[in-house]
């Protein structure tokens, strides 16, 4: 079978240790957590880091908790922990919807939310869910930490705001009342990357949509944040016509590329169709 090129291996014992290793080893070092994106790329020799810093022992980054009006998820929380978190499922069912269709149970046993977001694959599901949830991301370096908005996190395909000597430490989801959320994905087969996917979070007030987030996966060069669709929804009472209008904008504003999963026309159609379906379920959950 295919095997990675040689590299050196270090195991970090704390976040500080991981950061100092990155600082010392320089730009040819990569962090490895679940490894389910990085190792296949290394086997294909599309990636050949000289050093791997294993952060699987950083249990300080493995948590899902409510704190300061936010739901805070440590970057090392595994997909499976997200799926099994009653708290996350209750406050943000979009994450449970998404986790059920991310890869397969074995991959979910290893893969982490931090790894998923940092891979910055345009088809990655949690990025779209985080975009919809208006997530904020805590990035730590030896000099301290900074918080960036999800919209500023991805700099393009496979590129993020995390610097070479930094680590994504935490994902923060603002908690608000009367929330509902949902994730819809079309895949060619169980475990495949999305042909297209849409995530929606709504926050209701007096029967109207007080605020909303719409994020799409696999229909742009990174997770697509649908500002115009959100704009048309905000402040309005939910209706099929409203959802149609938002779906049309989501479809119009994405920029899919044709590949084996489908042509542009189909993916654009899915962006609209799945936005509509996610809106319906998110609103129903908020009102339910």
């Amino acid at each position, binding site marked *: *079978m*295919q*095997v*990675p*090129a*040689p*590299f*050196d*291996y270090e*195991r970090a014992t704390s976040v500080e240790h991981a950061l100092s290793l990155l600082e010392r080893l320089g730009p040819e070092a990569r962090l*490895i957590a679940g*490894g*389910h994106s990085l*190792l*296949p790329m290394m*086997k*294909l020799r599309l990636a050949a880091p000289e050093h*791997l810093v*294993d952060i*699987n022992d950083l249990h300080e980054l493995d948590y899902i908790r409510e704190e300061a009006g936010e739901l805070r998820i440590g970057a090392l929380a595994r997909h*499976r922990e997200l799926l099994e978190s009653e708290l996350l499922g209750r406050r943000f069912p979009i994450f449970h919807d998404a986790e059920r269709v991310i*890869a*397969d*149970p*074995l*991959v979910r*046993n*290893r893969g982490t939310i931090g790894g998923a977001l940092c891979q910055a694959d345009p088809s990655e599901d949690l990025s779209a869910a985080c975009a919809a949830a208006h997530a904020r991301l805590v990035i730590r370096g030896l000099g301290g930490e900074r918080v960036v908005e999800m919209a500023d996190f991805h700099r393009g395909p496979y590129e993020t705001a995390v610097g070479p000597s930094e680590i994504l430490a935490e994902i923060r989801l603002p908690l608000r009342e009367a929330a509902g959320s949902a994730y819809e994905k079309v895949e060619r087969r*169980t*475990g495949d990357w999305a042909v297209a996917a849409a995530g929606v979070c709504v926050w209701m007030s007096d029967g109207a949509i007080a605020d909303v987030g719409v994020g799409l996966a696999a229909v742009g060069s990174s997770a697509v944040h649908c500002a115009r669709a959100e704009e048309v929804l905000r402040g309005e009472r939910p209706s099929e016509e409203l959802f149609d209008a938002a779906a049309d904008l989501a479809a119009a504003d994405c920029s899919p590329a044709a590949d084996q999963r489908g042509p542009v026309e189909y993916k654009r159609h899915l962006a609209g169709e799945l936005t509509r379906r996610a809106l319906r379920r998110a609103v129903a959950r908020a009102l339910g």
Partner: protein
Amino acid sequence: MQVTLTVNGDEVTREIEPRMLLVHFLRETLSLTGTHWGCDTSNCGACTVLMDGEPVKSCTVLAAMAGGHEVRTIEGLERAGELDPVQQGFIEEHGLQCGFCTPGMVMTARALLDRNPDPTEEEIREAISGQICRCTGYVNIVKAVRWAAEHPAGAAATAASAS
């Protein structure tokens, strides 16, 4: 580098290249060839073993990353000459043909039953959905896992219940 881990209850320490994949460590370094491999991209699950009780794809775990952890392979399932009920179930229900995916399927089923002793068909199908079988169409694998759920003590239980 040196790595120390527990494999089927025994602590082993070996000198390895950092890039060595766990599947190769098991197969080549320890000669535990019951764990197979079928792809390069973590899709097929033929390499599935238990790490700290949870099924993982050993082609996508470095042996170095398994250091300090407990790994269980198909060779570690039989106890005192008695097959695990899942192994027996695969025989009873014709849950295998070429046998290549079988060790991985059996390990995943073992982990599933440890967490959920009475899984539904849907739960079984979900649990094995990261593993490909090209021979059985999965129908009898599902039955095999159900057999194991219904015979938690395996072949011994069948013999006893028939008495």
